[in-house]
């Protein structure tokens, strides 16, 4: 792909986990670019490798993980080649993460204000008083009514939506260039989800931030992202600008997934299903296209040789030998 303006370029990334029950091939030659200023969605079912991709970028993979190939260029530097110290200067500061379960991700026994200050002080040279001021400003930015009071509270005293606001305040406290939001609204109510997503979008725009939104919810990605990467079982199936992806899905999986998402006008008879399930990634004999076994358009060629990714339109790529 080789986009010169890309803020982040993931190229040919493969990750494996060595577990007691075998080698899990979690990511298989994943490549995509993220341009500065865009919100890109990474969607897929559980086990599709969405979170592993994010964790690899953020450098917080489990010790059992092995990156077997590829590179991740962030502002033209390969993150995977950086040593611990150099990498920590980037991760957390220029690149930050919002995790799925804010209540678990936050420290239970430390007031939330101090937790934000910790992040600020670890990544900047601000004094304590300045860091405190920054924490206050961030809580105000995420529209918390009484920041002064809120700073003294512990996560258990706050609702899930409020905890997620704290996570966002923390993630944005050092003005990151790139935000990785890993299912930021899963487990929250739809009304809270709408408010939190507004907040991420609005602050992103204001701070000129780029974001990767990882979600299983195709409709959420459709509403909030400029481009979408569809993943399945550790492989990228399709990449396209949002409107184009839904108007003209080229991969059989994308089309099935879209049709399986309940919409506001459809009848249950129109609801599609994705047959089968994500293959066990510990298997030795995984087909080159890991969707092949669930695919109604499978042909002999699908089981021979790697699946090339082809451009089928402007910024529209599909990895399928028998695209729609």
């Amino acid at each position, binding site marked *: 792909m080789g986009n010169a303006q890309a803020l982040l370029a993931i190229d040919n990334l493969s990750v494996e986990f060595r577990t007691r029950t075998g080698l899990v091939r979690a990511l298989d030659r994943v490549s995509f670019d993220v341009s500065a200023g865009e919100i890109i969605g990474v969607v897929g*079912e*559980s086990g599709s490798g969405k979170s592993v991709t994010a964790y690899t970028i953020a450098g917080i993979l489990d010790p059992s993980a092995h990156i077997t190939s590829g590179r991740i260029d962030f502002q033209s530097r390969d993150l995977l080649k950086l040593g611990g110290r150099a990498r920590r200067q980037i991760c957390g500061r220029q690149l930050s993460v919002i995790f799925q379960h804010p209540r678990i991700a936050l420290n239970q026994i430390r007031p939330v204000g101090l937790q934000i200050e910790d992040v600020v002080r670890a990544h900047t040279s601000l004094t304590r008083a300045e860091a405190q001021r920054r924490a206050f400003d961030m809580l105000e930015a995420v*529209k918390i009514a009484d920041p002064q009071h809120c700073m003294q509270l512990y996560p258990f*005293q706050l*609702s*899930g*939506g*409020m905890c997620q606001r704290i996570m966002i305040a923390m993630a944005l406290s050092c003005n990151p260039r790139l935000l990785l939001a890993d299912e930021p609204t899963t487990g929250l*109510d*739809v*009304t*809270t*989800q*709408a*408010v939190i997503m*507004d907040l991420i979008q609005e602050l992103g725009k204001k701070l000129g931030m780029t974001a990767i939104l990882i979600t*299983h*919810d*195709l*409709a*959420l990605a*459709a*509403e*909030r992202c400029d481009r979408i990467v569809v993943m399945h079982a550790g492989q990228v199936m399709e990449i396209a600008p949002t*409107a184009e992806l*839904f108007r003209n899905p080229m991969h059989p999986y994308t089309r*099935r*997934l*879209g049709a*399986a*998402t*309940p*919409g*506001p*006008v*459809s*009848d*249950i008879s129109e*609801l*599609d*299903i*994705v047959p089968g*399930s994500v293959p066990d990634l510990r298997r030795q004999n995984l087909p080159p296209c890991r969707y092949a076994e669930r695919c109604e358009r499978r042909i002999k060629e699908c089981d021979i040789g790697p699946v090339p990714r082809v451009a089928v339109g402007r910024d529209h790529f599909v990895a399928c030998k028998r695209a729609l």
Partner: protein
Amino acid sequence: MSSLLEVSDLKKFYKVDRSLGREKIGSDNRRSRASFLHAVDGVSFSVSESEAVGLVGESGCGKSTLSRLLAKLLDATSGSVRFCGDEIGPIAADSFTENPYRSNIQMVFQDPIDSLNPRFSAFDVIADPLRRLKHTKGQMLDSHVEAAARAVGLPGELLSRFPHQLSGGQLARIGIARAISVNPKLLILDEPTSSLDVSIQAIILKLLDGLRRQTKIAYFFVSHDLNVVRLICDRVLVMYLGIVVEAGPADIIFRIPHHPYTKALISAIPQIDPELREIKLRVDGEPLSPIDVPQDRCRFAERCPFVASKCRLERPPMREVEPAHWVACHFPLGIGRD
């Protein structure tokens, strides 16, 4: 259609010990009288035979408490629950297992992995209610379990497996098979698909819909996903802070919601199709505390974008604004207001 379940003014309060977490609860904590958390605060509705009624609302609104009251897993504080015309409200949950209606009201729980006994094989999970409630044994038991498994599309060879050996979709099927094994008339489904991927969710929804058409079991379907409720249910109840604020036919509620809260819930659902995205009605903030919730005002007033002074002075009664469409709002949307 005759009424299978009739609920009127059902309440469930929990006594709150104010000596813990005093400062968090509110400013009125100096009062010494007991406080109550109003989880379900006077709910009335009915479910007809073979009807599917959906219940939607945010977390903490009392959805799960209400479904557990109906399933007789919790004792109500007050109110009446009539099943097939007989009052079952006052019967204690503990002794309801001896009641002949126990097998008629069954429940499918939210998280299939947490709600199944890890030491029970799929066969035992499905057989348990048959053994306990119908005293089925031997070959009869085998054939009933196999029939239930067949009805939910669970391959017979999986019956000997244990929960940890099965996938999320298979566990969901077992949860449903367990509930329908004793031929209930009413199935209470508490977020049956919320832990599943869309691809599996679609399969389970189709299964539930087909099952209802075949068996004529009535559904009480609890979910926070309005799109899912719309697909499965004939009628929808919208719950807010322990009370029902709107009730009506599913297709009408989704097209023309009258309560601002319903409207906000619907417009918050992400839509794939840009043309279906309407102007968002955002409600920020959080519901009032359910502890000693004020009775003389609209509970949604604090978050309502259309709040008027009357809303803070008088509790809006539930009234029928259109045939079979009820709403508890002083100024319902689209009626006497733009």
